[in-house]
């Protein structure tokens, strides 16, 4: 037996409460009225606007900005929410730098796009805060649809169905609705419990019954739902985090990033969360960035993200990578973990350098290095637990058509659990909307309304 490892340096309250509160305040503070008016002035009101094309939900962006420009803020919110009922959350979490703002024609001659995300927030915040309903439900169809999952796809689908006159029951496995909006997004992107306020706004349309803490497949069988409801929308998201499959993975101190992010969001006092002194994050997506930056902002001394490929292959945008660096997070590319060291708890991670071989495939270079770690976060994606649904899958996710139909009569699916999902709130919202429109057509075709 060798010498025992030194105790891991993991503890709460690395920073005082005031500092932590400042570190977890709004990442991008909202625009004031005068800022919004000036920013709205910068929009060229493009024909067939590239920003709208780039928006997964197809929001009429020049249209809503023009309404901000004319001080018609409520009309602006209507323009946004009619395409994307989670326009408020998307304004906060969308990677606009690779969506609408990347497409803004202002990039062409001044490299400074209109700040569409912030304008969208400016328009939607007052409506959500005031709880003002901008949509009316159509006369009741007498139909009832089950939505499985209360994340962005499920709630978007439920809201649109409710507007169209159908009743909806949402089955939510979690204690609170919102899915990843509630559990999976960095705290400083959605302060002041915005995710819950947005869900309340969505549910206030009426006709949507939310059943929290009900896991379909365990508490209630999918087949029962099929019998009981006129249609079914599956928006179950992804389940378990992927494993590294290397030695030492089960040592204490090795955690799934999504669990830590969720704990952070749910902690009323973030100083109570234990934080490692040396933190290593394995992965290259938004989850990796979120867990790394938040660890840093909780007081971790050294945080390093290690990703097996180069910066362009990272799921996190260049903007997010830059955000991490600005927060003091180191990003190391071209290395993959080979083992996690430690006896009774993690002390480090051994990596081998990688590169592309002559065929362009990822290959080891034969060089190795070890990073000391008190905590290791795994952020290499999650997988779908398709269970006994009997639905077709492709690369581990449900296969759907353009209408989000699964091919099984009466079942639609959308969000991260389908093959066309891309882990973005905005895409999930669009899936829910498309599915609701398709379900509505289906129910009306069948008659009886």
């Amino acid at each position, binding site marked *: 037996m060798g010498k025992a490892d030194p105790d891991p340096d993991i503890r709460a309250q690395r920073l005082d409460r005031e500092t932590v509160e400042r570190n977890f305040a709004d990442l991008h503070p909202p625009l004031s009225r*005068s800022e919004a*008016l*000036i920013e*709205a*002035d910068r929009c*060229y*009101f*493009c*024909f*067939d*606007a*590239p920003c709208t094309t780039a928006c997964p939900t197809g929001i009429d962006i020049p249209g809503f900005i023009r309404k901000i*420009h004319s001080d018609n803020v409520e009309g602006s919110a209507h323009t946004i929410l009619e395409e994307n009922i989670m326009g408020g959350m998307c304004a906060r979490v969308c990677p606009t730098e690779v969506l609408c703002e990347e497409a803004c*024609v*202002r990039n*062409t*001659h001044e490299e400074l796009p209109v700040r569409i995300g912030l304008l969208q927030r400016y328009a939607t915040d007052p409506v959500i805060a005031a709880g003002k309903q901008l949509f009316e439900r159509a006369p009741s169809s007498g139909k009832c649809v089950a939505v499985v999952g209360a994340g962005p796809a499920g709630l978007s689908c439920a809201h649109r169905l409710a507007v169209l006159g159908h009743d909806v029951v949402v089955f939510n496995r979690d204690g609170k609705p919102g899915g990843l909006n509630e559990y999976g997004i960095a705290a400083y992107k959605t302060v002041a419990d915005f995710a819950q306020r947005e869900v309340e706004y969505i549910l206030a349309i009426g006709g949507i019954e939310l059943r929290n803490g009900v896991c379909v497949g365990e508490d209630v069988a999918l087949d029962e739902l099929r019998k009981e409801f006129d249609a079914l929308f599956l928006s179950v998201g992804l389940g378990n985090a992927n494993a590294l499959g290397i030695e030492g993975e089960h040592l204490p101190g090795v955690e799934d990033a999504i669990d830590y992010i969720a704990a952070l969001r749910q902690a009323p006092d973030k100083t109570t969360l234990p934080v490692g002194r040396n933190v290593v994050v394995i992965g290259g997506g938004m989850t990796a960035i979120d867990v790394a930056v938040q660890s840093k902002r909780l007081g971790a001394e050294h945080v390093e993200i290690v990703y097996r490929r180069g910066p362009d292959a990272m799921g996190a945008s260049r903007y997010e990578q830059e955000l991490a660096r600005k927060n003091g997070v180191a990003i190391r590319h071209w290395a993959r973990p080979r083992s996690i060291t430690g006896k009774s708890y993690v002390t480090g991670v051994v990596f081998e350098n990688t590169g592309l071989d002559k065929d362009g495939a990822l290959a080891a270079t034969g060089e190795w290095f070890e990073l000391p770690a008190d905590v290791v976060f795994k952020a290499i994606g999650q997988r779908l637990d398709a269970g006994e649904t009997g639905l077709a899958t492709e690369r581990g996710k449900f296969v759907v058509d353009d209408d989000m139909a699964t091919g099984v009569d009466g079942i639609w699916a959308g969000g991260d659990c389908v093959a066309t999902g891309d882990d973005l709130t905005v895409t999930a919202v669009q899936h829910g909307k498309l599915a609701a429109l398709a379900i509505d057509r289906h129910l009306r075709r069948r008659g009886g309304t």
Partner: protein
Amino acid sequence: MADLSTEFLGIRSPNPFWLASAPPTDKAYNVNRAFEAGWGGVVWKTLGEDPPIVNVSGPRYSALHGNDRRVIGFNNIELITDRPLKTNLDEIRTIKRDWPDRALVVSVMLPMNEETWAKYVPMIEDTGADALELNFGCPHGMSERGMGSAVGQVPDYIKMATEWCKKAASVPVIVKLTPNVSNILPPAKAAKDGGADAVSLINTINSIMRVDYDTLTMYPSTDGMGTHGGYCGEAVKPIALNMVAEIARTAETRGLPISGIGGVTVWRDAVDFLALGASNVQVCTAAMVYGFRIIDDLVDGLSRFLDEKGMTSVADLVGKAVPSVTDWQYLNLNYVEKAVIDQDLCIQCGRCHVVCEDTSHQAITKTVNGRRHFEVIDAECVGCNLCVSVCPVDGCITMHRLTEGTDPRTGRPIDDRKANWTSHPNNPMRR
């Protein structure tokens, strides 16, 4: 750097920028600050009879704003000076003594009887002022009392009052014209006929700025009621330029010296006025929006511009563009231009396409070979300049003259001979 010193009616000033008769020239304090800042001259705020008029103690001004709160247009209901005549005369005398190299003109507004003019004009002249400017222009308040634009809208009154003033005055007399007329030429002609040494224009334009969206009453208001005021600022410049050019190019008024007023904000605006026939310019709104130090750029910019043009004095520029102003009927109808979009500068906003498609001649593509691409269709383009006007990128869309071949829109060969409406076959009145 070109010397900007100017002589207007024999009055010398170090530059052609005078402050117009208005709130900035109501007191010695303001005028001292203006001269310290470098203004070439001032026209003292309009004097009237004693006892002085009174002004409202509520809002006198309001603005038309861009979204960034930039003032585009401006409106006022202030009347002439509300200070005792003696106070003004004493201050004018002191200022002229302290600033002998600057132009000091005094604006006057008096009722329509000769005795009053005979009484007040010598008192004003006694201050040493360089000239008088007759305020026949204010469209609010004073016009209700038969003065200001009430005079300026009736050529006979203009002539009459100008004659009275000239009879009593030994210094030059400038008549300030109101734009609140359908044709500026009869008032200008009347001033000339009455013996005016020069005209200045424009005064402000009758206007109501807006309503209050909460109360649905006129805005701004004085205790719930509002009244029309005079509109000025950048937005009125094109109206002023037309009136200046009309006077400069019309045989009956040509040669009458003009002091140009209306929206001068930057030195380029002065170039417009000077080239279209004004010999100097007067400024008010820009100073009220930004303060007196804008004079630095006005002087510096104009001087560098003259250098660039190889001109050595302001006089070289005066009237340069007048010969290029004509009646529509004399425009060359054989002249053909087409818009050309510089694809390297195009930022793909598509504004040119949509405005041409919706409101003009369907002459700009939206896609070429299935790709977003904006290109002028010469066979449809009438050369209207709309796309140039709306394009957000300066210099991206330009107009190019066709000099040979045929116009693909009309199928007619390009004819380098000039031909205008007066001889056009479609003109029933052709000569």
